[in-house]
């Protein structure tokens, strides 16, 4: 009986996931785009409803259409100004653009509405219904009814309405639809409008369901809705509902059987298993696998800026000598952190810029490396110079074991799979006894060099600079070798590369392997610099930050990645002292990252230094 109770619990929360998944899957089906901003649109919908209910006292039925209109329009604006200009670019451009919008919306909501959780007063009839050993509420019924009603209406619209046909035709073959006289741009606009309006409905219902809202809810529920849509099959409406329900039940039954500690782990494991076993999802078609990779062509439209040798030598010499002139340890620490992130950015660039695989889980490699170095030094008393190579081996072994299956996927699916892997690794670090869970690893000893123990930012400045120099030499050599050419061949056209005897899977694995080694080095340096590490340093937001650095510098441009990393680490620190409207500009730094990413994708996709 208890099992049945838990299944009911799972169905109740699954309903919620399904509601978010609906809008998500509709947009994917038509625009062939993973809309990472959907969760944020959903959150904005919740806040619009909240403002109307709390400050203007509107009843539910009055505010519902307004919320739908507001989020629908928000979706249209996003489509029109952030996505349509990228229509001819490869899918990665749109994906990054939606990530940027998600950051902008989330941070704006945080600034406007404050980050704390607010009460969403009850607007709907509330009563409880005993069911088995537990109870469901009227809200469970309403959420389910709205979900099914939305899916049915949409289905009928797509099946029987002329414009519905146009949407389906566009979803099937955009070019052919355009040829037949369908205004595909209008179709896209309308789809975004409908999908986002659905997100708004989900927003107020979920605000009602939990009687509370916060700016963070967008990311949190967005991720679950996204998982539900993929489990059901991207682009498949009933699939989204079934996917949501399955996800909910897996979480509830998994939490019951094992422990709530692993709840999110179950979701992401389910996601990965579905991706590997049935990548089209339970109901989706398998045509999602295209030969071309996500980043091709788009990022190689410009001639990269070539830095003259003398300039590189001068900058390097200046960097080496800098600590002799600067005694401020704060500046040196910020720069050392910048160098560590530059290593990470170069490492991600090998994967994203050269081999064309968009990884949203790079923090996983970085985290495994940091924890391996820290634990080997603290538990086994190994010196850094033994722990670091060992950590590199461990990172490559774990990283490749996890990532290899994901690399048989292509396009969007690499991004989804790496995002899930990043989450899984972080959840493992948070839950394992070995990694000391949330308590983190503390008391990591200093690095010894010829009997001298490094201490303080100045020593680590030189160590990280040396590591960065070495990383750059390796990366440049790699880019110029036949390996680099093979990577680029895969990036440009996987099918053509395969036809010429370059085995994409092998080379992708190799790129991830080399990137994993470099990320492990960065992790090891970070661990010894900060002397304590915690799971919160290796989250998806960190992966996105590193990806922003790569895009900022220019995909495939090694010097660009270094500059991108230094800019994004140094600038927020420099902004601390600048204030605007009584707040330090540093408070707006994440908003700034979002805007920067959005503008770069739109106006300078090749980044600061151009792509190669």
């Amino acid at each position: 009986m208890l099992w049945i109770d838990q299944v009911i619990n799972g169905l109740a929360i699954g309903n919620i996931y399904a509601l978010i998944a609906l809008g998500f899957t509709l947009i994917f089906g038509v625009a062939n785009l993973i809309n990472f901003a959907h969760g944020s649109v959903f959150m904005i919908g919740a806040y619009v409803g909240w403002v109307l209910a709390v400050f203007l006292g509107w009843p539910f039925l009055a505010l519902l259409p307004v919320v739908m209109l507001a989020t629908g329009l928000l979706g249209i604006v996003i489509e029109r100004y952030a996505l349509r200009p990228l229509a001819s670019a490869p899918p990665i451009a749109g994906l990054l653009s939606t990530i940027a919008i998600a950051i902008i919306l989330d941070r704006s909501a945080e600034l406007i509405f404050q980050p704390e959780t607010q009460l969403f007063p009850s607007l709907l009839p509330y009563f409880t219904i005993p069911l088995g050993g537990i109870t469901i509420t009227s809200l469970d019924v309403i959420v389910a009814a709205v979900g099914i009603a939305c899916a049915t209406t949409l289905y009928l619209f797509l099946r029987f309405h002329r414009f519905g046909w146009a949407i389906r035709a566009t979803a099937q073959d955009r070019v052919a639809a355009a040829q037949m006289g369908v205004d595909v741009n209008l179709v896209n606009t309308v789809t975004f409008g409908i999908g986002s309006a659905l997100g708004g409905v989900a927003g107020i219902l979920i605000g009602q369901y939990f009687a509370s809202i916060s700016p963070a809810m967008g990311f949190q529920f967005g991720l679950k809705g996204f998982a539900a849509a993929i489990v059901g099959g991207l682009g498949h409406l009933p699939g989204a509902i079934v996917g949501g329900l399955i996800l909910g039940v897996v979480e509830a039954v998994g939490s019951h059987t094992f422990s709530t500690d692993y709840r999110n782990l179950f979701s992401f494991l389910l996601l990965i298993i579905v991706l590997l076993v049935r990548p089209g999802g339970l109901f989706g078609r398998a045509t999602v696998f295209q030969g071309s990779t996500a980043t091709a062509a788009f990022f190689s439209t410009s001639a990269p800026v070539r830095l003259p040798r003398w300039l590189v030598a001068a900058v390097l010499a200046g960097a080496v000598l800098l600590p002799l002139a600067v005694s401020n340890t704060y500046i040196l620490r910020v720069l050392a952190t910048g160098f560590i992130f530059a290593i990470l950015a170069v490492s991600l660039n090998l994967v994203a810029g050269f081999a064309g695989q968009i990884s949203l889980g790079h923090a996983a490699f970085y985290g495994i490396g940091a924890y391996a170095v820290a634990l080997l030094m603290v538990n086994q008393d190994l010196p850094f110079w033994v722990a670091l190579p060992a950590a590199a081996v461990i990172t490559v072994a774990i990283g490749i074991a996890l990532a290899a299956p994901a690399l048989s996927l292509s396009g969007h699916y690499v991004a989804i799979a790496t995002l899930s892997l990043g989450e899984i690794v972080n959840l493992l670090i948070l839950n394992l006894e070995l990694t000391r869970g949330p308590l983190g690893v503390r008391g990591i000893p200093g690095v010894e060099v010829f009997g001298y123990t490094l201490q303080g930012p100045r020593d680590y400045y030189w160590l990280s600079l040396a590591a960065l120099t070495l990383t750059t030499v390796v990366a440049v050599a790699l880019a110029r070798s036949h390996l680099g050419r093979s990577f680029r061949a895969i990036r440009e056209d996987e099918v053509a590369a395969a036809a010429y005897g370059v085995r994409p899977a092998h080379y992708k694995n190799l790129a991830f392997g080399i990137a994993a080694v470099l990320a492990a080095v960065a992790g090891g340096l970070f661990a010894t610099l900060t002397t304590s590490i915690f799971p919160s340093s290796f989250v998806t937001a960190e992966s996105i930050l590193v990806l922003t650095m790569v895009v900022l510098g220019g995909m495939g441009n090694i010097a660009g990645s270094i500059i991108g990393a230094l800019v994004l680490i140094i600038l927020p620190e420099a902004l601390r002292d600048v204030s605007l409207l009584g707040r330090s500009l540093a408070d707006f730094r994440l908003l700034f990252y979002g805007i920067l990413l959005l503008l770069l994708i739109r106006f300078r996709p090749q980044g600061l230094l151009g792509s190669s």
Partner: protein
Amino acid sequence: MALLRSLRLLSVGTLLMFVLAACAQAPTPTVKPVEPAKPAATTAPAAAPTTAAPVATTAPAAKPAATTAPAAAPAAGKEIVIGLFGPMSGNSAQYGKNFSQAVSLATDDLNKAGGIGGRPVKIVEADDRNDNKEAANIGERFASDANMLAVIGGFSSAASLSAAPIFQKAGIPQLCPTCSHPQFTREGGKDDGKPMDFVFSLSNPQALEGPFNAKFTFNTLGKKKVAVLWRKDDWGVAAKDQYEKAFKDLGGTVVLSEGLADDTKDFKPVLTKIKDLKPDVIYIALFYTDAAVMAQQAKQLGMDIPIVSSGSLYNIQFLTLAQGAADGMLLPTTFFPSEGNKLALEFARKYKERFNVEADNFAAHAYDSALVMFDALKRSDLTRKSIRDALAATKGFVGTTGVITFDADRRVAKDFTWIQVKNNEFVYFKTP
């Protein structure tokens, strides 16, 4: 095309709506107003209060001057610089905001009353987003600033610990308002770790609170079987470890112990599981936003198992969010503004008056940290080392969260008061 054009118009409309939404909330009482000019690094010292500050109640000698001239304020002379760090933006920003408001309240009062020997105290704030890497950068920034004499912060033990070794090495005292990590003041996170003698915490350590709560549950309430739910972070782990160990030592049984990720919204699976295990009592170590949702869902499931909480929940917003579902819940607190604690009552009144929001546990700890720090400043030669020594010598200082005496480990042991939620209000709990 006409449709597209109208859509374009409508899109402008959407933007307008958001602006309106933003404006609509500003004048209403339930939402906190933007606080009057934070003491930013570049502006005049906090000694020049802004016009929004409540001047009537404390009647300063001089009228609040214009924003530029610190000379008009009571405390003149070279300012004493104290650092404050915490999450001022990001998901934990509400806690950093509490810190910032409480410390500026204490600082403005001090400066109006003449500062430290006629010199005003200036607070330099830095935002760490609760991110370890940024906290470490801030640590280095503060430590390398020769003018900075001491630091208050940060919010979580994890972020504070990332900066602590830097403060220790630089020999600048750090006073964390809310760090309850068992080995917060020791290196390496081990009981026998080398002491960091420049690092202080104003929060009762978990090693004190856990056994205290366990004894209350087992002895006072007479409950022998407990289910424990805890927040999946360093604080939650320490809280449940200490509690469970003590509860078992007393002879009780822990029938379930599960960690919940921050921002968990669906508690029904674990509550259903607990319902089936039939414990006598549920012990929770959660933050108020999560605990409120939990309380609601427990009520929905018709659960009547008593709930005892750790001392993190004292916050009016908890009651607002729980909407009556938390009735009966028991919690210990060191901060409870009531007739029994006049100091806390006075602080809560001033805080509400100035910021139009109820002071909570976190704000009170930050306020006390500022008071303890100022007290130490007065007893020191205004050097980092002498401030550390003065802090370490703090004995019997009465703050809003209790009597503060730093022990050899630079930790405190303040008395708890048991309170209960009744009719959606916090009231003293009387032992039945």
